[in-house]
């Protein structure tokens, strides 16, 4: 029995874990692939999505058709010239403008007919507005901007003439937490959650699949090492690496994208740690059935990255999803992390939002790590 006692003794276990950890860190230092996943991949995705994905419409090419120039028409079109939202181009006839829109050279048309000045004086001049509806979201934005600009012009013109503005009410909007309404401010924190989902799952799934591929896992299995030790020896190094990647992403968000960080760093770190455990747990779970790197990578992308992208509320509002799909989003760890990140970055340490989401993250981490432990066997079949 002394043999058994020795196998299970803590000292031997610590020695084995130490050996495995030393090996793992030496491999990380020599094989750049895990460093690439932890640092390069998040940086690249942040750059691509951070600069590429924007929900603001800016510099939209717009056709201005003025059939008969006049003072009123000139002052109307001038208000478009100075708008940051539009890049107007003049067309002489509506036909030419329509052709340009069909060719997607412009996204909208503003059409002042020949009788614009005359009917304006009469008290009701129609302005033709055509918006390209191929991209419904953009179309709605453009429509809104157009209305805003024309309303502004009408008010200014009325004030110039000392007349009361023809508007019964005035809305005075105030936007909280993101006063400049930069979509980047909400997108970038959400993106960090999505990116960390992918890099966390990839880190563990890929390195374990690599051990299967190279036959090192089979050799490990026949030593005294226990399954706990193998899992811990993967979790600890890649947790460290993942936190490094997270820190780099936050740094990029703040200094490169200029996203304000109102909450505390400590809280951010704690939430990230919980989330990373869940993501690494997903990777471990994947590795228990994917035994080559290609399959592991595919599964990590399809099973973690894509659902997080679509269902975490980072891009699409969860409240406007149908109920069954809303129910599914509760299973997506990124959902809770997106909520925490957006709150910590833009609002600050808002405990009523953060605490329930942290609790959910802790539960997810427990769930995935527990499942990974249950499925991991010291056997090949």
């Amino acid at each position, binding site marked *: 029995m002394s043999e058994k006692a020795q196998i299970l003794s803590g000292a031997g276990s610590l020695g084995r874990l130490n050996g*495995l950890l030393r*090996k793992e860190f030496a491999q990380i230092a020599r094989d750049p692939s895990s460093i690439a996943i932890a640092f390069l991949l998040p940086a690249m995705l942040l750059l691509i999505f951070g600069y590429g994905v924007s929900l603001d419409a800016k510099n939209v090419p717009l056709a201005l058709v003025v059939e008969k120039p006049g003072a009123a028409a000139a002052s109307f079109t001038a208000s478009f010239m100075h708008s940051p939202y539009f890049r107007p181009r003049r067309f002489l006839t509506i036909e030419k403008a329509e052709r340009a829109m069909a060719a997607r050279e412009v996204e909208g048309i503003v059409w002042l007919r020949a009788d614009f000045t005359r009917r304006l004086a009469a008290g009701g001049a129609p302005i033709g507005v055509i918006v390209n509806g191929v991209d419904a979201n953009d179309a709605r934005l453009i429509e809104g901007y157009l209305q805003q600009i024309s309303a502004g012009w009408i008010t200014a013109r009325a004030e110039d003439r000392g007349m009361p503005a023809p508007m019964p009410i005035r809305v005075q909007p105030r936007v909280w937490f993101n006063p400049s309404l930069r979509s980047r401010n909400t997108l970038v924190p959400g993106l960090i959650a999505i990116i960390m989902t992918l890099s966390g799952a990839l880190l563990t799934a890929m390195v374990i699949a690599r051990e299967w591929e190279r036959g*090192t896992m*089979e*050799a490990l299995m026949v030593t005294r090492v226990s399954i706990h030790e193998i899992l811990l020896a993967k979790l600890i190094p890649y947790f460290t690496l993942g936190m490094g990647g997270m820190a780099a992403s936050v740094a990029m968000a703040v200094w490169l994208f200029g996203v304000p960080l109102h909450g505390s760093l400590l809280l951010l770190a704690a939430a990230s740690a919980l989330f990373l455990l869940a993501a690494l747990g997903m990777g471990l779970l994947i590795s228990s059935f994917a035994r080559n790197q290609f399959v592991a990578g595919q599964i990590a992308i399809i099973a973690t990255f894509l659902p997080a992208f679509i269902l975490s509320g980072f891009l699409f509002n969860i409240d406007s999803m149908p109920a069954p799909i809303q129910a599914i989003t509760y299973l997506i760890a990124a959902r809770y992390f997106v909520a925490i990140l957006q709150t910590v970055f833009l609002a600050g340490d808002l405990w009523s939002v953060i605490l329930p989401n942290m609790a959910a993250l802790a539960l997810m981490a427990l769930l995935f790590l527990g499942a990974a432990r249950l499925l991991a066997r010291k056997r090949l079949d």
Partner: protein
Amino acid sequence: MSGATSEVPAILLDRVGKSFAAGGQSVAALEDFCARVAKGSVTGLIGPDGAGKTTLMRLIAGLLRLDRGRIEVLGIDVAKEPLRVQAAIGYMPQHFGLYEDLTVRENLDLYADLQGLAQADRPERYAELLHMTGLGPFGRRLAGRLSGGMKQKLGLACTLVRAPRLLLLDEPTVGVDPVSRRELWAIVDSLVRSEGMTVLLSTAYLDEAERCGAVLLMHQGRLIGQGAPADFTRPMAERSFRVTAPGVGKRRLQERLARIPGVLDALIQGSHVRIVSESVAAPSLAALGPGFETALISPSPARFEDGFVALLKKGGRTAPPESAPPLPQERSKRPPAPSRNLIVVDHVRRRFGSFYAVDDVSFTVEKGEVFGLLGANGAGKSTTFRMLCGLLPPSSGSLRVAGYDLRRAAAAARARIGYMAQKFSLYGDLSVNENLRFFASAYGLYGARRRARIAAARAEFELGPYARASSRDLPLGYKQRLALACALMHQPDILFLDEPTSGVDPLARREFWRRINALAESGVTILVTTHFMEEAEYCDRLVIMAHGRVLAEGASEDIKARFQSAERPEPTMEDAFVGLIERDERERVAA
């Protein structure tokens, strides 16, 4: 734990059974396997690929769940206490997991940590292991930068960090150069002798059986024989002969010998044919008939393989029909074009980064020759092959196949070449028929000609019964036939075979070579790579390659003759190979 009595075997296998699910049905990998492995000896687990050797090793190591029966290792039930078994044994899987980006020393450290070897004991044990494996000077080298043989030795050192009582080695010598192979065996022998270790070693090389204390002979998941190696060769004593017939082609002689009654086995060995008789009496050469009057017969010592072949032919093996294609009569004896060199490799080098995989290789192959490239894994055989197929351009030098320069007319050259890749590149999901149809269209055959060629291939290779089976589920021997049928679809006059018979059983290998010989007789030029010393004997001429260079070129008996000495009057191909490598190493040290 000192109470273990000597009666307890190191391994007890009691009606062991294991099945795997494959394509919706359960396939038995091991059936009713009973055996005992005695302590303090080397036991060889011998059998062709797919016999179930690795499955058995993994079951013994507690890595697979047992379906039926019981396994006891050192008196411990594996199914109940796998951890205790794993703590007591050392196991080296076939592809031993060395961490290639760790150094030799770091790999040892890792396994010392995992095996719980105390820090104080390490210097002494490391010194011992490094001395034994000859890895001493390479402590700081990355494992990934070691040669194949050195990697195997490092793998062995890692499993031995804490001397186990039982050592399981799964095909440790496959693809390793003969020098390293001998060194590995020397290490294993010394472990058994000086440390009293028990070793179970699996191998597909039949010539290794004779180095074992006891042998378990496996075939298709069953134990078909066990005992000392001599038990297998003894019944074959005085039943082996060598036959020569001056003035008659060796292939015609072999083909004829295989057909006379009383001959169990006939195999080309260099310039002569080695036969095994069904009884102690030598078969009468008169049965050879006219044209073979010059034939001479002399006795030859029995080998382990003879015993295996006899067992397979006797036992209820699902025998491939004994109907080798009849050799074409002398009809195709075209006038021997004066030195028609069909393949010319001239000072070819191929560099990958700073490493020359092929370094100044030259040889020529004449029409109708069977030419071999013999070498260990990593010797440069496959790179040479790829360049000859026009798949890889040489860094310098020139290659000509059938008169075409591969730099300029690779496609034209390829049309003349049939290529059978290692591990047979077939489409596993397609049926035999579909594979044949696909390769026929890939070679540009269509219409009546395509139908005729497919029908001919099906008949010639007797694939009819399997026509609708998906090629993944074919027995290894039939896969090999199908691959050959596909390679010959466009009737090429040059055939490239890359490791064609590694791991197939001896009967399937004989059958395959009968077909190859028939092709050679009909004028097809054949280039074959192999790491089997045995297979080199079937070639007319060969080159021996190591480290990307040619060490020797010529007929096998000429190469062997160079290493004849008083104590070795009949050197084997392996003796010659080892001699060549040693001489090459001396020259390199001197230079």
